């Protein structure tokens, strides 16, 4: 297994100076320069996490609300740590404690939160497009922490950051993404990002879990896993929700694993320095064999570590953008 490089890798794209939008609603809308800016900024942010005192005053006095309408451990914790390392005042709300259960609409919930003047809202929601709705009615900057089956932009950014640490580039890499393509927001954000950065993206999964119109995604797709994994630089597995069987998407977990599970044998088809990624939570023995998940090519836990750095970068850049706007008035 290769050692992660600590120096920012030279990429063909040049970072822009600032982000165009005040929100991060998705990878859609970001260009290669903006993506590079976030990834480059995350390199510096990662260094903060290695210090004895893991805290910088960048967001002192800013209030960030984490609004999670869907259960999440990894993403919510990652955002909270990122916010605290930047010295923001943070508040996390999950569905169990929100007034949504009392029949309040999303718009009203958020208008009430806004009345208390937060600067940023990080939201996870089961409905695709929920952050777009908020961005039309809110003053705060909205960061999408996953919306339905649509996008999960910070996941794609941390994936790209992790790939870049190992491969020094994204352009030209063969990235095979295997699993439930239909329902995955991670997939959609990754396709947009990897395409913007010039990677060679291959998608693989059962025909029942391939989205309609896939031919217009600008990727290659196959139902034969060997073809997807062949000479791949990166293999990324997507979570299979076991209850999908009830929608007739596949007959059994057993058969899924037989046809699409990532085993050490299959991984041998990939390049020698392949890295294996998974956004979590993993289903061992369904989409991934434990021998692969815990094996020498796995970078799954690095993804989690890098998530904090990437989210710090996003928070920092959006806050900085806001500060620019204020000073321009």
């Amino acid at each position: 297994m290769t050692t992660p490089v600590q120096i920012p890798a030279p990429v063909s794209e040049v970072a822009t100076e600032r982000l165009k939008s005040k929100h991060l609603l998705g990878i859609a809308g970001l260009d290669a320069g903006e993506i590079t800016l976030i990834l480059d900024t995350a390199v510096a942010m990662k260094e903060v996490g290695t210090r004895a005192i893991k805290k910088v005053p960048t967001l002192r006095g800013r209030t960030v609300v984490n609004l999670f309408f869907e259960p999440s451990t990894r993403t919510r914790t990652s955002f909270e740590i990122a916010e605290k390392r930047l010295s923001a005042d943070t508040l996390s709300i999950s569905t169990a404690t929100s007034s949504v259960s009392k029949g309040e609409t999303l718009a009203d919930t958020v208008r009430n939160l806004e009345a208390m003047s937060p600067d940023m809202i990080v939201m996870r929601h089961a409905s695709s497009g929920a952050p777009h709705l908020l961005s039309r009615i809110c003053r705060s900057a909205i960061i999408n922490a996953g919306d339905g089956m649509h996008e999960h932009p910070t996941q794609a950014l941390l994936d790209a950051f992790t790939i870049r640490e190992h491969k020094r580039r994204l352009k030209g890499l063969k990235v095979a993404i295997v699993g439930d393509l239909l329902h995955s927001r991670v997939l959609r954000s990754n396709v947009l990002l990897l395409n913007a950065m010039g990677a060679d993206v291959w998608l693989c999964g059962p025909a029942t879990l391939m989205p309609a119109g896939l031919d217009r995604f600008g990727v290659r797709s196959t139902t034969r896993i060997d073809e997807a994994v062949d000479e791949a630089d990166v293999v990324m597995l997507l979570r299979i929700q076991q209850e999908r069987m009830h929608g007739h998407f596949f007959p059994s977990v057993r058969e899924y694993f037989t046809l699409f599970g990532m085993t050490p044998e299959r991984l041998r088809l990939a390049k020698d320095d392949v890295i294996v990624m998974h956004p979590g939570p993993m289903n061992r023995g369904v989409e991934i064999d434990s021998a692969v998940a815990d094996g020498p090519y796995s970078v799954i836990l690095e993804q989690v570590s890098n998530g904090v750095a990437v989210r710090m970068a996003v928070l920092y850049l959006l806050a900085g953008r806001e500060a620019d706007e204020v000073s321009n008035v």
Partner: protein
Amino acid sequence: MSTLIKGGRVIDPSAGRDGAFDILIEGERIAQVGRDLATNGAHVIEIPKGCLVVPGLIDIHVHLREPGQEHKETISSGTAAAVAGGFTAVACMPNTEPINDHAGITQFILKKAAEAGLARVYPIGAVSLGSAGEQLAELGEQQAAGCIAFSDDGRPVATALLMRRALEYARMLGAPIIDHCEDPTLKGDGVAHEGYYASALGLRGIPGAAESLMVERDVSLAELTGAHVHIAHMSARQSLRAVRAGKDRGVHVTCEVTPHHFTLTDELLDAPVKYDTNLKMNPPLRERVDRDAMLEGLADGTIDTIATDHAPHHADEKMVEFDRAPFGIVGLETAVPLVFDRLVHAGKISVRRAIELLSTNPARVMNLPGGTLTDGALADVTIIDPDRSQTIDAAALKSRSKNTPFHGWTLRGSVVMTLVGGRVVHRADTASQGRTTAHART
């Protein structure tokens, strides 16, 4: 009392008439249509040059929401929207609360419509009790109370057996069954057309086959029973093909298309505004090839009528996440501008064909009075300025709900005046000014 409509170009496809005629109205009916009729003390309505005088438009697919959902629309506000849009008659779907599956509810609707005194209202009764798809409603009783057709709109008749029986029974009564065609298992919890845009936006898809599968079933059952089935708000190219094939072999099948399905496509879900809930309707906006198929069907005669599927929803109900928003948009007040701007002026169909689709055929398909300007007919008349532009302003709509995706659109073709039973029930604000070019609202 008599009224003389003087000047203007009379287009009445039912009588094969197109030219400069005057129309003399005595009471509620047309007394005479002819050239240069004498005034003889009649009240004269001078028609500005270039305006069209056509048989009153008929929308055979609207939701008036009363009883039960008066926050969305009432029979009074809905018929005000109808006459403002040039419609002298509307047929209202039974999915009210309670559902119109009983003569008592039909009578209530007709009473409210008479009190409003604007457009004629023709109730459509439910096919099954509670539109639950289990037990046939009392179609005969409903018809006696005033229902002109039967439909479980919004909840398609799920089993072929019930549909077969309903068709046979309705045939006995001489009434059509209108079906909202959608296979519930293929639709699932879909919210947008299954295709690239739904996939990219992470919205659950509804394939065109969910519609066409049931259209094919209904055409087969109409063939089996000899009954008349009318396919509501057709949207998929495969459905058009099924209807065309049925018509070719002599099956009594008719169909309608909405202005939004011949105008808009699913691309709009992505831009300029992502996830606009005023673009969420059922059936969903489909792909260009489907939209183009609808345009073809309108031009070649396969499609019988244009109906709006006017579906008012309160702003609060639409101000939610896309997948939680109700399906539907208002349509009564934007239909004429869209038909003229997008079909007639775009060269897709003739003016005469537009009037067939909006008046002659709806009357014929649903066996309604109207749709004609001949001696003795109901004096339901719509006057249209085909060249006057207007900018759609959602806030100015007469409908109680403002859920339209056409807000801010400037369209050429406007309703000038609407007469029902010889009475002027709507006069556009700018009617007295005659023709203007673009009158943009800010």
